[in-house]
């Protein structure tokens, strides 16, 4: 990632991070870290494409359902409406060729019951992004707090939290998730059905992936706490809480943002895997993983039914990965 900046200044002073970006010993004038990152990000075509896709998908998910727009019904169909008349009863595949793709059903029809795939993919996007965002939020909150506490206080607190991270990273996460969902009662916390399932999945994913954030935050805190501005705050009489929340954490927004962006695609894949294995979101609610489970039985007669949700997962996860990689390159002052 070579991103030489326009060089206009002369002196080697101020902005130590910015100086690192100078090419051939020349320094840059008056650009904040954020501006530098923005300039670098804008030059990264892949990251920009990723960002556009991410924004586009998020908007689709927000405006999918009625109160905000009803994009799901853009082609006049709802996710759970069967069209048995369009299905060949002999093969269970859609009667029309190409999986029943037409103007009314741009992504084709599901085998057996003929539900509209466009509506189901959009409905699945909602679930997928909702679970991924919420789970990431959970792990960012836990991870940032524990990470900053471990790095800031050091000593036995650090040892304890670091060991805890090791334990969590060593757990067979997928199996644990399967086990928790399997051992779960049908009704709990005043929730049932998919409401309960989704809450539990968000909790499991978030609760087991906080160490990824905590590790980064801890490492950064270790070096931040030695910096002059922390000493300055302390000599002015600031307490630990003030230093952590007002001095240290604001400086960690960039790395947290990067790793949160990179955690979202992992969480999307995780939710899809759980639904694929039948321990995630339940029918009739559409989910990308759940659609692929059903596709296992029909990929020979209706390959489109496998390709549509598969591509939905692929495009979404790839977009988040491109954006996350781009953000990391742009925000990391050491990146070359």
């Amino acid at each position, binding site marked *: 990632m070579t991103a030489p900046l326009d060089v206009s200044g002369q002196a080697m002073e101020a902005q130590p991070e910015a100086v690192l970006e100078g090419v051939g010993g020349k320094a840059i004038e008056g650009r904040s870290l954020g501006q530098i990152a923005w300039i670098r990000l804008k030059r990264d075509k892949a990251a920009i494409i990723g960002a556009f896709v991410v924004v586009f998908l998020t908007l689709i998910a927000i405006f999918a359902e009625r109160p905000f727009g009803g994009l799901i019904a853009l082609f006049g169909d709802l996710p759970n409406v069967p069209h048995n008349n369009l299905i060949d009863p002999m093969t269970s595949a859609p009667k029309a060729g190409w999986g029943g793709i037409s103007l009314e059903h741009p992504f084709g029809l599901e085998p057996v019951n003929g539900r509209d795939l466009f509506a189901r993919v959009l409905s699945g996007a909602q679930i997928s992004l909702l679970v991924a965002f919420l789970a990431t939020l959970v792990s960012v909150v836990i991870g940032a707090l524990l990470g900053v506490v471990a790095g800031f206080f050091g000593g036995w607190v650090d040892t304890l939290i670091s060991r805890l991270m090791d334990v969590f990273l*060593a757990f067979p996460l997928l*199996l644990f998730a399967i*086990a928790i*969902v399997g051992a*779960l009662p049908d009704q709990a*916390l005043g929730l049932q059905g998919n409401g309960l399932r989704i809450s539990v999945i968000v909790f499991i994913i978030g609760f087991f992936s906080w160490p990824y954030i905590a590790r980064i935050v801890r490492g950064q805190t270790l070096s931040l706490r030695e910096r002059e501005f922390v000493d300055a705050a302390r000599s002015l009489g600031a307490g630990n809480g003030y230093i952590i929340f007002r001095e240290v954490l604001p400086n960690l927004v960039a790395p947290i943002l990067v790793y949160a962006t990179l955690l979202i695609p992992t969480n999307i894949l995780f939710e899809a*895997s759980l639904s694929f294995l039948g321990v995630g979101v339940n029918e009739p609610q559409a989910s990308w993983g759940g659609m692929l489970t059903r596709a296992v039985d029909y990929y020979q007669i209706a390959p489109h039914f496998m390709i549509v949700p598969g591509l939905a997962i*692929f495009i979404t*996860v790839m977009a988040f990965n491109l954006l996350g990689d781009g953000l990391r390159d742009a925000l990391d002052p050491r990146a070359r």
Partner: protein
Amino acid sequence: MPGSDPPGHPGRTIVVAFIVRRVIAAVLMLAVVSAATFAIFFLIPRALGQTPEGMASRYVGRDATPEAIQGAVKRMHLDDPILVQYGRFAQGIVAGQDYSLGPKKAECPAPCFGFSFNNNQPVWPTLLDRLPATLSLAFGAAIVWLISGVGIGVISALRRGTLLDRTAMTVALAGVSLPIYFTGLVSLSVFAYTLGIFPGGGSYTPITQNPVMWFQALILPWITLAFLYAALYARLTRAGMLETMSEDYIRTARAKGLKESTVVVKHALRATLTPILTIFGLDLGLLLGGAVLTESTFSIQGIGKLVIDAIRGNDLPVVLGVTLFAAFFIVLANLIVDILYAVVDPRVRLS
């Protein structure tokens, strides 16, 4: 003082002390993991308001009568205090345990990983029965991904910025963005169903029965599973190589006139590989506890498929057994990697 260990006894005692320490840590870890597993199965459902009867119904299978469920609560001691239950559970792993099945008694010899009331047999023999399929899948794939992933990563780093590097990294990014069941289904659809080159899903044969069929049936699963990990390892290796190649000691090695191949292989690659081996140990340990997604996609009757079938059949003892089994594998893999690490890299055991 890294690397200054004299090759005599002092170094060896340090290694032994290190190994003992790690083994103790691993045993503690196993205790933590088994307690956590137990909590998932018995504590969390109770905390969420599940009654002992409700829990029992998940252990005796789908169509149990109320009397059978009451009996199961008694037999499994589900109404005991939770610590007593954990004590019995831990004891079963070490010393075995008996389950009463109405009039008869069923033995579950040590290590008792639970007893499946669905098919009236202990879980442990089933686990052993399913292990070879999972081992075949995991080790075969591991060989493929380690060679291809690290190879591509090194070449990409050395030819940085070229078309080759950019293509490889784009493919790798796509690789980590594709769910394995999707690539698996696509490859089944193309290579098994349309082209007919490889056998389709569910054709796994034990190597003892027919080595040729074993190999043929595993080629697609190996490649599919390895593709995901190779992509991951290529990205890791490339990043690690780029970082190492800019270190001062690489410049020193070049400056003293070493051949470029020696610099790359002996100095750069070795330093890059150590952290990757740690991740490799974890990944392999994780897979040995059941490659759940791959086994379900290709219908390989391994441990991962076992757990999914058990969840669908409401056979929770099997799920518990597999979870515990998998956790043990991960702890074991971690231990082996730690020890290998200490033998290879003297800095580790001194810190």
